[in-house]
């Protein structure tokens, strides 16, 4: 009865007739993260409100786009992957994610590909999130200006759009995240929970605002906001004139699925802190299911309301016109074309509290995402330093906060450097394959799960199981791993065949991807050779999971 599989035998649940456990008085307490903290890390890694921007991006990138099928299909892909990661976490219950799974299950060299790659790319993501928060600062200031009837705040929105201002704001976000990250994981989780609660509240309020208004109300509100009596219809007409194709198409929706897979990216990330979870398999499963259900219900519900109240033709026209001909769009309205639902909510709401919620949702979401990503990234670095792949000092844990302070400092300093580059240098060619990398991470999880029953069956099927249960469990793990791999491959292929949306293969982007993926094994090979010559402990030993027998 080490899990659902084992308890499928003769043991069955009964009423409260059995006796309690007797505990003798002994010393010791152990710190543990429970389901709320794990859920917070998962939800924060997703950035719940960013979906509006992603809806907009999907509408812009694909003609005749609709989000229902992509939303549910992507949720299904993550649901399948969730079980694959659950088996991996049960087998190797510790921090480090794909790095740890691949290094223990497949081989240390393969694990090192994921380890360093994840650390570098996630650190870059930190900077893009901070940069994103900076880019949304004008929207926030406009909203706050409207809420407080402050012309100064509204005017300030126009003065924080320069590269220098964006860099300074993104740096400020990184500093705030750094200071918060130095707290204990539990405290970080509490901060994240609070920020997520604000995002969820913004979502719920938005649902309420949309539900109590009609399409005519929205058209009137847009007209008033834009000082343009026919703004709603004008945007649709301008879109049509610009060649926007209205309606929906299945092919387009299938092509958007990777977009939505990336949109959910992070929803399972509590496995990265697997070593700090109480009853890892169970806590992870509950946290992931709760997070997935919340996201599907919220995102699906909001999309249904947006379609009903705002109208798909308007959203398609606004997204495409805003991207293709911003000047024409700007002549009709000053409403941010990428803010999506938050923008609609902002002009529909009449009370200041609602405006404040909508205005601050994105910057606060980015702080939450970065807190979660720092937690995740530092655990990956920690795991590698713990295995001696990186200097052992990186794994040093603070005595007071029990957090890997050196790893946190490294991630945030490099992240600040990326902030500078993102603000002043055009990195778009270099990081073009970032989406592909995230899909490859998912693929790595699926592959590790496929290998698990063949390479290390003893890690999931212990001696307490009879042969029948054991064979069933191993078969199930193989199937779940194979299903995850197939779905991840579908995502990878869709990303590759839509380079204009997900990133082109150019010399710069391909070399960057190869360097990111190849540096791990090179470092592993060098470090191992040095250790062998020095007669010190072999690196491969550090990456070997002890069998239970």
């Amino acid at each position, binding site marked *: 009865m080490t899990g659902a599989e084992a308890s499928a035998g003769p*043991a069955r649940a009964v009423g409260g007739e*059995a006796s309690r456990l007797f505990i003798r008085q*002994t010393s010791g307490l152990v710190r543990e993260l429970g389901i709320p903290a794990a859920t917070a890390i998962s939800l924060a890694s997703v950035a719940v409100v960013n979906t509006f921007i992603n809806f907009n991006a999907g509408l812009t990138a694909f003609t005749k786009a609709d989000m229902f099928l992509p939303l549910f299909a992507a949720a299904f892909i993550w649901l399948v992957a969730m079980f694959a990661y659950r088996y991996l976490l049960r087998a190797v219950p510790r921090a480090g994610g794909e790095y740890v799974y691949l290094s223990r299950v497949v081989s240390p060299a393969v694990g090192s590909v994921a380890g360093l790659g994840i650390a570098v790319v996630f650190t870059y993501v930190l900077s893009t999130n901070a940069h994103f928060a900076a880019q949304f600062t004008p929207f926030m200031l406009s909203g706050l200006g409207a809420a407080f009837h402050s012309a100064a705040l509204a005017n300030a929105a126009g003065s924080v759009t320069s590269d220098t201002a964006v860099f300074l704001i993104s740096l400020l976000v990184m500093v705030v995240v750094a200071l918060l990250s130095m*707290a204990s994981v539990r405290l970080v989780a509490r901060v994240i929970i609070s920020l997520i609660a604000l995002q969820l509240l913004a979502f719920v309020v938005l649902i309420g605002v949309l539900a109590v208004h009609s399409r005519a109300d929205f058209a009137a509100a847009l007209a008033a906001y834009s000082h343009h009596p026919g703004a709603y219809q004008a945007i649709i007409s301008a879109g049509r004139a610009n060649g926007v194709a209205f309606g929906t198409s299945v092919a387009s929706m299938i092509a958007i699925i990777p977009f939505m897979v990336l949109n959910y990216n992070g929803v399972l990330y509590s496995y990265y802190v697997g070593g700090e979870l109480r009853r890892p398999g169970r806590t992870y499963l509950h946290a992931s299911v709760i997070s997935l259900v919340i996201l599907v219900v919220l995102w699906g519900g909001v999309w249904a309301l947006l379609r009903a109240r705002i109208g798909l033709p308007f959203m398609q026209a606004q997204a495409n016109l805003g991207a293709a001909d911003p000047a024409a769009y700007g002549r009709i309205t000053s409403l941010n074309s990428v803010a999506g639902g938050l923008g609609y909510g902002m002009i529909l709401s009449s009370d200041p509290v609602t405006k404040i919620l909508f205005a601050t949702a994105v910057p606060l979401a980015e702080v939450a995402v970065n807190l979660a990503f720092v937690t995740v990234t530092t655990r990956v670095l920690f795991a590698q330093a713990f295995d001696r792949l990186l200097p052992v000092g990186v794994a040093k844990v603070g005595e007071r906060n029990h957090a890997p302070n050196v790893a946190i400092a490294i991630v945030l300093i490099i992240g600040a450097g990326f902030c500078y580059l993102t603000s002043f240098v055009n990195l778009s060619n270099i990081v073009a394959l970032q989406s592909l990398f995230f899909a490859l991470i998912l693929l790595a999880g699926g592959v590790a799960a496929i290998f698990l029953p063949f390479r290390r069956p003893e890690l999931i099927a212990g001696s307490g199981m*009879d042969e029948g249960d054991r064979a069933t469990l191993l078969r199930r793990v193989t199937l779940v791993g194979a299903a995850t791999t197939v779905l991840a491959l579908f995502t990878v292929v869709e990303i590759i065949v839509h380079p204009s949306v997900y990133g082109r293969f150019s010399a710069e982007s391909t070399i960057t991807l190869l360097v990111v993926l190849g540096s791990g094994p090179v470092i592993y090979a060098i470090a191992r050779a040095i250790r062998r010559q020095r007669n010190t402990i072999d690196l491969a030993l550090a990456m070997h999971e002890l069998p239970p027998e």
Partner: protein
Amino acid sequence: MPVFRQRKARALRIFFATDIHGSEVCFRKFLAAAKVYEPDVLLLGGDFAGKGLLPVLRRGPEWLARLDGQDLAVPAGEYDRLAADITRRGFYPVRMDRDRLAELEADPAALNALFREEIAAQARRWCELAAERLEPHVRCIITPGNDDPVDADPVFAADSRVEFPDCRVTDLGPVSMASLGFVPPTPWNTERECPEEEMAKRIDEMLGPLPAGAACILNFHCPPYGSGLDEAPELDSSLKPVLRGGRPSMVPVGSHAVREAIKRYQPVVGLHGHIHESRGVQKIGRTLCINPGSDYSSGVLRGAVVDLAGDGTCLDFLLTTG
């Protein structure tokens, strides 16, 4: 020609784990470490005894037990499997009827005696398992910690495969190893506690007679005070963690006597446990102090591999998790 300077050859490898608290999974992993890390010595440094005893009640043709908050029933013929599941979680399954259960609930002394019997029985099983699974050349050393009742001592001491050198010095070849399971007084008033002065006396009795300059290592369950390997949550009078600024206040709870001994005798390595959440490595003078920590409740064995050269110097170490 090697690019990097070659160091001395390894003469002794120790795999050290501690605080497994009755976890059958962890003990089996401990034995499996002999194949994975190929140590010369397997060392289990204290607090091997479990903390929980689970009554398994008979009801007609079934056995009932409450596991992980769920009441389970298995057919009578499946008792062994149920017991194995309970044991893997580090609890002791005990078959009994409702009368015996009521007696245990009413009589703490009877419950305590039953715990001691079960711990001693587990010690016997573990000795048999070690004899069955370990190659003859691998030494298996088990020493007690403050949570281990003395009732298990004679079991280990009498066994021919396992060595049990508590409060004495053992020859490991390149180094001598001093072992001590006692700790300074804790709020739980456990089995092996003594004042700091007595700790110092016991340590001096072991280390004092060693020749000057002889390489030695310490296998002291309690970590040195203020080393960072002894940070535990501060507790109030009701044994609940004290919160300061919204998080548990951590305080050093190690031994001053152990710290003084390390400073005075400068052993090569200090192997410690006791404080599960203070996993880490610190240097005190020339001594490398290691607390591998413990995560036994998740079935995870945390350990440390330590390599020593022929002259007793420490070549390398590795914290492990498996």
